[in-house]
């Protein structure tokens, strides 16, 4: 804590002092060893590896149908085929392989949608919180109007207008959820802007944009990272919901939501087709929540000071 304050002072006032990389997150590594962060982050790293390496590790082609070996139960149960670890669906497709490929869509939407929403919301929040004035009034009013509009309505409307597909899903998440970032980042920017190190930087005569990017942004970053993690969990759920109702990617791309919808139809004949993607979805959402929770505790500026 003290080191951070001193670091800021040395950066902003004593210009000649050696300076750490300006944009680097100045986070003490020790604090990141929170069990929540390790568990959540660990699972998500594993998931990323699975998604990236899907063609290498998937035992079968996820689309290959084999009606002779349809509805085989998972390994260990009576009548199982050991080459299908998690069994097969009603079309004889390998559940494990579909699960592995399904992680690609889930993570792609989570990362893209959350990052875009984060970028738009954070930039607007920083501008509104730092420059205030007309920009702040305009941005805050926009957020207020946006928030008055219930998210379900907006997503129904957006998917109706944009048509189904993974890009509509991403667009809908970004258009609806940028306000989450904007509100919080704006408030945090304002509170950072009133602190001594910023006043010092102003007194020395740094350009305002420089102060925003070099002094304030690194200190707002922890909150942004936390929100980003939580938003990715939300995006995974939204994608699963939309593919569950058939409004996400086309039906020949395996998705967890699509598998759950298919499994719902054949629950009594093949519960594993339903249970496997549901377990994957729950674990992923919990991992993002754990990570966000852990980051919030580890990085919370209030707890730091």
């Amino acid at each position, binding site marked *: 804590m003290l080191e951070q304050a001193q670091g800021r002072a040395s950066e902003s006032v004593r210009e000649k002092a050696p300076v750490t990389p300006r944009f680097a997150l100045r986070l003490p590594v020790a604090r990141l060893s929170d069990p929540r962060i390790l568990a959540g982050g660990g699972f998500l790293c594993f998931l990323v590896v699975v998604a990236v390496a899907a063609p290498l590790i998937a035992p079968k082609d996820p689309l290959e149908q084999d009606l002779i070996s349809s509805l085989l139960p998972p390994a260990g149960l009576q009548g199982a085929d050991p080459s299908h670890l998690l069994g097969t669906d009603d079309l004889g497709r390998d559940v494990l392989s579909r699960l592995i490929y399904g992680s690609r869509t889930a993570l792609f939407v989570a990362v893209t949608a959350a990052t875009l929403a984060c970028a738009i919301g954070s930039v607007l929040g920083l501008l509104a919180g730092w420059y205030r004035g007309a920009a702040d009034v305009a941005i805050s009013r926009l957020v207020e109007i946006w928030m*008055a509009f219930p998210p*379900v*309505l907006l997503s129904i409307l957006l998917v109706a207008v944009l048509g189904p597909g993974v890009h509509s899903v991403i667009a809908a998440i970004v258009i609806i959820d940028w306000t989450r970032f904007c509100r919080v980042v704006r408030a945090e920017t304002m509170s950072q802007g009133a602190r001594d190190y910023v006043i010092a930087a102003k007194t020395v005569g740094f350009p305002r944009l420089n102060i925003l990017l070099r002094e304030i942004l690194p200190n707002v970053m922890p909150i942004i990272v936390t929100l980003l993690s939580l938003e990715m969990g939300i995006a995974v*759920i939204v994608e699963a919901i939309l593919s*569950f109702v058939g409004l996400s990617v086309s039906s020949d791309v395996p998705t967890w939501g699509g598998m759950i919808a298919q499994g719902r139809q054949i629950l009594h004949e093949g519960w594993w087709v*339903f249970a496997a993607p549901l377990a994957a979805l*729950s674990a992923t*959402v919990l991992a993002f929540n754990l990570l966000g929770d852990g980051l919030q505790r580890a990085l919370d500026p209030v707890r730091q000071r």
Partner: protein
Amino acid sequence: MNNSLAVIRRLVQSAATLFGVGIVVFILLRVVPGDPTAMMIGPGASADDVIALRARYHLDEPLLLQFFGWLRSALSGDFGTSISLHRDVMEVLLSRLPATIELAIAALLVAVAAGVSLAVLATLYDRRATAGIINVAVGLLLAVPDFVWALAFVLLFGLLLPVLPLSGRIDPTLDIPFHTHFILIESLLTGRMTVFADIAAHMVMPVLALAIPLAAIIARVLTASLSEAMEADYVLLARIKGHSRLRLVLQEALPNAIGPTLALTGVQFTFLVGGTVIVERIFAYPGIGNLGVDAVINRDFPLIQGLVLAFGAIFIVVNLLVDLAVTALDPRLSHA
């Protein structure tokens, strides 16, 4: 007198918000790449069909004129005819809305009862293992969204413990005429208990899925306000008088701590109403949420428009009621 003025101001505000929602719907459905008719019409349509359809929905007129025409029919409750159902949109909405209202209100009641009980328990057994267990459980309930709860219930009650009906609103073999669409209330009021039990059994899973996240939020916020209120002077005074801890919590702390929870419940209730869309879908429950998904899949433009306005109206009415309730119940405001 100031109070009634505030109420009138709030009513005007609500009307303005609904009007705003209407404008957004109007604009969004008209900036569709190309044309709203592109959403409505099948791939095999001829150019003449498109022109006829455009004329039918007045899309060939100037935008401002379109808007006033749309506003006039919307105000008189005329949202046109559903393309996929071939029925009047307003009629479809009115027949489906009661199912969703019954579901949402039941979920709200369950959530409030469960959330308040958990918070009171956690406060009563403050600093004991019970409070710790409740706290951890609430954290877990909070992390899992309604969609996943609904699916977990399908797995649990549909497969492992098949005691509850998995889909629909009522057993189709119970072929009993109803006078209204509020069939849960109606069967209760007319004393048809087997029918009531059947409808209630159909609602257990969707209601729980919707209620759990809200109950968790209520429990968390109310526990925090209660523990703050328990430190207040009036609670200390009551404690000196020798009242029991249960009475301290229920009679002294709760009325003063409930305000923030109430306001929050209102905001969160709108999320619950939103959650009905997917939960109704999972349990094939015939409300407006399920209808909305079908409307989007079928690109049923008049129906989507009517649904969005119906949802918008619900959200606004809920927020209005919550605001009025918060004002009415806050002891600080009523004594002023």
